[in-house]
C-alpha cells in the first residue's frame, strides 16, 4: 500500500534533518497523523523498519500522535469535532469541507544523538 511511499518520504525528511543537526543516530521520530488520514500505523512502522535499515535511522521508534477530526462551519464559524463521519455543522446543519485538523501527516520532531561530546563522559 501507499505506506511505503509515505515511509520513503519520511525517511528522506529524517535523513536531511539529521544531517543538518549533526545527528548520528536517530532514536525516536514524533509524528502527527490525522484520524482522517488513510494510514495504518502498523503498516507504516513495518515499511519504515525495512527502508531505514543500514541508515542512521535504523531502530528508531515512530511515535504517532493521532489528531482528531475538527471541521469549521463557514456560515457560523463554529469549530466542531466530527463524529461518526458527519461533516455537517451541529448548529446550523451546513456542510463543512474545511477541516481544521484530521488530515495531518507530519513530522513534529526528531530525537537522537549527536557525535558531540556532551561533557558527561
Amino acid at each position, binding site marked *: 500500500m501507499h505506506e511505503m511511499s509515505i515511509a520513503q518520504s519520511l525517511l528522506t525528511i529524517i535523513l536531511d534533518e539529521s544531517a543538518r543537526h549533526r545527528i548520528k543516530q536517530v532514536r525516536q521520530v514524533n509524528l502527527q497523523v490525522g484520524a482522517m488520514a488513510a494510514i495504518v500505523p502498523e503498516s507504516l512502522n513495518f515499511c519504515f523498519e525495512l527502508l531505514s535499515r543500514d541508515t542512521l535511522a535504523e531502530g528508531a521508534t515512530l511515535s504517532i500522535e493521532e489528531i482528531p477530526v475538527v471541521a469549521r462551519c463557514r456560515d457560523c464559524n463554529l469549530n466542531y469535532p466530527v463524529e461518526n463521519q458527519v461533516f455537517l455543522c451541529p448548529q446550523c446543519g451546513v456542510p463543512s469541507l474545511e477541516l481544521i485538523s484530521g488530515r495531518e501527516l507530519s513530522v513534529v520532531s526528531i*530525537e537522537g544523538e549527536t557525535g558531540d561530546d556532551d561533557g558527561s563522559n
Partner: protein
Amino acid sequence: MAQIKVPVVQNILEANERLAALNRQRFDKAGIYAINLMSSPGAGKTSLLEKTIEALAGRLNMAVIEGDLQTAYDAERIQKKGVQAVQINTDGGCHLDGNMIQIAMDALDLTDVDLLVIENVGNLVCPAEFNLGEHDKVTILSVTEGDDKPLKYPLMFQISSVLIVNKIDLLPYVSCSMDAIRKQAHQLNATQQIFEISCRTGEGLEPWIRWLEDRVRAQKKRMG
C-alpha cells in the same frame, strides 16, 4: 554522546503537494480542465471514459493519462476511441503521484486539449492522499460493491466533488440501496454532485456530460 531533540514540523507529503501545485499551474496555463478519476478495481473507470469520449467527440478535445499496475490494456482501449492516451505503469504501486503526472504530461501534446482525465489506479484508499494538481476529484462507486462503501472509505468520498454511481441497471439484482449511498455521501460531503448512471445501457450519462462541459467552459472563462 549528546542527546538532542530537534523540532521539524514538516508535512510528509509536502514534496508531492509541491509537484501537484506545479501540475495545476501547467493545466491552467494551457487552459486545461483536469479531473482525477478514482474507484476500486472494476467499478467502471475505463468504461465511463469510453462513454464520455463517445459523447464528447467533436465537442471537446480530450487527453487521457492512464494509471495501471502492470498492463497497457486501458490505454489501448482509449486510443482505439481516437483520443491521445499515455500509460503510466506503477509496477505494483497503488496510486499515482504528482511526479508521474509531470512525466506523463511531457509525453502528451497538450495544444488545444480542453479536458484531461487522469485515470488513477483502482483503489479506494491510497489515491486519496496524493493530489495530482487536478481541479476536481471524481469517484465512481458501482452498485455491486455494496452501499456501505462511502463510510468505509471516508477520505476518498469526502474529498471528491463528484460521486458517480455506476451499474444502476443491476440495482434490481443486488442488495444495494441508492438511498443509503445518498445518505452517506450527504453526511460526508453534502456539496457533492451525484450522478447515477449505467455505462452499459447509457442511462443517466447525459447529466454527467453536461456537467463536464460546464466545468470545461468555466475553466476557459477563468483562464481567459
